[in-house]
């Protein structure tokens, strides 16, 4: 299984039936593929839609129905479109059950940096600060390292996205939960050892007893 698929499958299992979820552009978007369609997880996009669905069939797209990256999408029956103020009312008012987004760094305090590399990359925060500050659960979905360098670090060196602690980190190696005691290692990816995770992490990890393997919702043989 590709690292991306491990992350996406594992994140998918975090999303509760009947919840409202925002998936960031890129890797997080792919999480939708692995959601049980009967779970009635509703996706929203901050540009103004509740009930986002996958890309439309070729030639059936509408330029006025897009996601936050500007790409055309489709929608589920019962979707609602909203203006930007209402959209961020949902996000900031605690109506969004979960947001799934990427990170440049996460640190021991569970703080996230994902919007700027000063002097190099200044794309703007878009809705990231609102999402990380306002969503009920903030789930970081990312590769554990970038070009071999740990992304889970003692203290973020890059500017923070929010001073609010995120809820969960899901990588291709591990599931880690920021808590008052620090970053608790909850699960290992299939075939990955605790030692490998520790080696790939520069932050201190709290390890309590046996660390189980991730349940990816697939038969062991298929994995």
């Amino acid at each position, binding site marked *: 299984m590709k690292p991306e698929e491990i992350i996406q499958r594992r994140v998918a299992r975090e999303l509760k039936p009947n919840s409202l979820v925002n998936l960031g552009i890129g890797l997080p978007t792919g999480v939708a593929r692995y959601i049980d369609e009967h779970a009635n997880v509703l996706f929203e*996009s*901050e*540009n*103004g*839609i509740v009930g986002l669905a996958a890309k439309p069939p070729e030639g059936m797209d*509408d*330029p*006025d*129905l*897009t*996601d*936050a*990256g*500007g790409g055309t999408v489709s929608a589920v029956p019962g979707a609602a*479109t*909203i*203006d*930007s*103020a209402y959209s*961020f009312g949902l*996000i*900031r008012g605690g109506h969004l059950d979960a947001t799934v987004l990427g990170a440049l760094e996460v640190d021991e305090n569970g703080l996230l940096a994902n919007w*700027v590399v000063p002097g190099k*990359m*200044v*794309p*703007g*925060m*878009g*809705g*990231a*600060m*609102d999402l990380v*500050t*306002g969503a009920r659960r903030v789930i970081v979905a990312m590769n554990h390292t970038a070009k071999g360098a740990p992304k889970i670090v003692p203290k973020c060196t890059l*500017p*923070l*996205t*929010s*001073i*609010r602690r995120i809820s969960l980190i899901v990588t291709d190696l591990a599931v880690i939960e920021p808590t008052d005691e620090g970053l608790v290692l909850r699960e290992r990816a299939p075939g990955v050892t605790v030692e490998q995770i520790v080696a790939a992490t520069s932050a201190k990890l709290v390890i309590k007893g046996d660390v189980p393997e991730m349940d990816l919702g697939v038969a062991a043989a298929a994995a």
Partner: protein
Amino acid sequence: MKPHLKPEDAAKLVPDGARLMIGGFMGVGSPHRLLDALAQSGKRNLTVIANDTARPGVDIGKLIRAGAVSKLIASHIGLNPETQKAMIAGDIEVELVPQGTLVERIRAGGYGLGGVLTKTGLGTIAAEGQQTVEIDGETWLLAKPLKADFALIAADQADYSGNLQYQLTATNFNPIMALAAQTVICEPREILPVGMISPDVVKTPGVVVDYLIERAA
């Protein structure tokens, strides 16, 4: 009946140095023809308030490429490298604002509020130099109102009296900006007789709209 203009005549209303709000999200729901005309009109020193600058040479990206913009207040410029280059070169002064805060600041401008208090951005570099307010021992960041000389917006349908209706994700910032500018110019997809848009579907009452852009010839 609302005054109606060709895009090139609407562009003439906008002086150099004007402060513009421009609707749209990555170009979706932007007033395409009006932005075309404006980019071609050789304006200088515009301040643009918008969610983003679309992609290079597209919609607001046209104004960037034309060198018409000297100041930008936006939430995201990541998909337009030309904007980033102009910012780094110092040709455009860019103020980056969290998207939810940006839309509330525009709404506050249009609604006559002195600002709103938010947690978004608090304690980050996006809050540097900004005022905070303590309420019952809790700290909030003050988001101050934004207003503009012109709002250049797009709608799906307009009626002759300027009532507007928006469609799908082309709605975005348009109805919010329609209240926050001195002069509101709207480019609708189609224009209909009065009475053809249900009062409950009208999202922007015509009374706040100043000009409609005529349909393409």
